């Protein structure tokens, strides 16, 4: 039986995806029964959502001519 600490650590290190099936099932079972770990999982998910939203809000900030300038610089660097 995995403890809350083991489950939470496995989730926050991002190691769950690569964990053996048995371990992943144990975590899923634990989460079904444990509100506290579920809340921690919710935190992790929402932080990801917020960081992606924050980053994509700046998506259009890359100057439109950056690609063209980069290509010109590459040309020069090959002279």
């Amino acid at each position, binding site marked *: 039986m995995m403890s809350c600490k083991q489950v939470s650590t496995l989730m926050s290190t991002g190691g769950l*995806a690569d964990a053996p099936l048995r371990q992943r099932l144990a975590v899923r079972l634990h989460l079904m029964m444990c509100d506290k770990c579920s*809340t921690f999982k*919710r935190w992790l998910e929402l*932080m990801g959502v917020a960081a992606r939203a924050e980053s994509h809000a700046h998506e259009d*900030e890359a100057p439109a001519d950056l690609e063209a300038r*980069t290509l010109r610089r590459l*040309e020069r660097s*090959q002279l």
Partner: protein
Amino acid sequence: MWSVGTPLLPTTVRSAAELPLYDMGVTDPLARLRRREPATLHEIVHQNTRRLFRAAQGMGFSSAEADDLVQDVFVTFLETLDRFEGRSQVSTWLFGILHHKVQERRRSRARDDLHDPVDELFESKFDAKGKWIAPLPSPDRVASSAQAAGAIADCLQGLPPLHREVFHLREVEELSAADVSNIIGRTVTHVGVLFHRARLRLRECLDGKGWSPPR
């Protein structure tokens, strides 16, 4: 020298005849890249510019600095192309170059101590059996508000640089731990530790900025 729109063979290759597959459209992308075919380079610049710019900003650089960094990354990419063995994706290779540039700019290598005070904070939340001592406040109520967006930007700013980079690459670029391990030159386990610490720091910070309902 090559110029945009003019296919050019590297000087070591005297004629297209030495590259039998050259005009048949069946050469693998790596070979085309090695020959520095403008169309291929064009495509790579096009596919990665915005992403690299976003990553540089995500690591805390200003627009002007990010602009410089992106150009430098591609220049280095071209210079070191012969060392690229095609074992990783081009984008992973580019992120690796960005990582080195960022380290250079920061001069001081980011410390990645084996010990981090945030570990004790995490420990202190569990009893001897590894059970949560007290429940965490629920983040749901305010996490989608505009206030939350401001808070995440502030809290990301406060992370140690390497934590911030790992968090960005894993969460925003959604790269695998193995890719991030290649990019920053640390083991997959170490990437996990850095990701864990980044998230704990962020959570504490957001908690303090009203991400959870008043208690």
